[in-house]
């Protein structure tokens, strides 16, 4: 019994820290609200799609910035997509990094864009690690017979 309670506490604290540190925003709570007994893996599924989509976009961005003649419109389109999907899952820091990136696109500043790409990649990588940790904690709670506390 104590084990479950402790694990749940750990989960709650970790989740709270992600919000507190700005990694996640309210939209992530929205996603959690959409999860229920009939759709117990909804959040994991959406986040997995986000990971796939983001990795594809980051690759495209790297390639686009390597070109002789940089196509800023195309880059902007990719960043726009990444910004959109990160916003849809509540990945706040990734989203913010994308906003900065788009500003450099507008200025057609290759150097700036390259720096932003590094920043976005960094934020994405952090986000991925943290979400994977979160999901692992959730699985441990479930395995111990507990339930994942729903956001208020």
């Amino acid at each position, binding site marked *: 019994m104590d084990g479950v309670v402790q694990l749940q506490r750990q989960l709650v604290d970790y989740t709270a820290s992600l919000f507190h540190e700005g990694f996640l925003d309210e939209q992530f709570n929205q996603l959690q609200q*959409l999860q*229920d007994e009939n759709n117990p893996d*909804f959040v994991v599924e*959406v986040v997995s799609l986000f990971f796939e989509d983001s990795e594809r976009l980051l690759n495209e961005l790297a390639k686009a910035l390597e070109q002789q003649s940089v196509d800023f419109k195309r880059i902007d389109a990719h960043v*726009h997509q990444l910004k*959109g999907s990160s*916003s849809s899952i509540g990945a706040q820091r990734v989203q913010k990094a994308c906003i900065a990136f788009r500003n450099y696109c507008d200025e057609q500043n290759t150097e700036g864009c390259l720096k932003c790409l590094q920043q976005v990649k960094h934020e994405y990588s952090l986000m991925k690690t943290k979400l994977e940790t979160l999901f692992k904690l959730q699985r441990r709670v479930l395995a111990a017979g507990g339930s994942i506390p729903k956001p208020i």
Partner: protein
Amino acid sequence: MARNSVVSRRWRSEKMDGFDLSPPDEQVHVLAVDDSLVDRKVIERLLKISCCKVTAVDSGIRALQFLGLDEEKSSSVGFDGLKVDLIITDYCMPGMTGYELLKKIKESSTFREIPVVIMSSENVMARIDRCLEEGAEDFIVKPVKLSDVKRLRDYMTAREFRVKNQQVGNNNNNNKRKLRESCDLSSSPPSISFSSSLLSPWPSPPSSLSSPTSPSPCLSPSPSSSSSPSPPILSYSAPCSPTTLDSPTRRLKMSSSD
């Protein structure tokens, strides 16, 4: 409009060409259009949890194909049996934008009555205005939340109720007058519409959408979202019988004269 496999399709879900055909019933059927896979997954779940049936497609072209509006190729399976009650579309999409899709739908005599809602991550007034002017019912700033969908759902429920009552009224008319036996209801112009142009007696406040801080722009004048039969606020015009439906009181009398 005979459909070969409607019954067999009715109680199982299929995937066909990227279309998700959930079992049709009296639920509101929403056609969701978004090129983002993540967003499609989210909007689909938001709608389903709000008791809507959902068909999610990844482009405006696909949406038109689904509706049967695409001139290039007509679907061999004939999807028009699955009536669409609401279209919700992303604005920024490659190829055909949500705005262009909106225009195509409003240009179609068959589908122009279907409410279209636009979603966009950019809260740009000019964009919002343009969409509303083109006939969009509402404009939702992304990310889409449960409260946004709930509001849409309430609107659709109220709208459906009004449509049903209108049809009951029509049936009564037809029975009594027997002049329009050959006229089937589907061909008479649907008289329920929430586009501001029909709601002349009501001050239409599209400007309620102009506040960027407002998280949930109101729908075009929808004076009542209640679905109880008693409220007299039925503010649409009825081309079928213009002389009898010009006052809410008369409208009420008609609906109760079963």
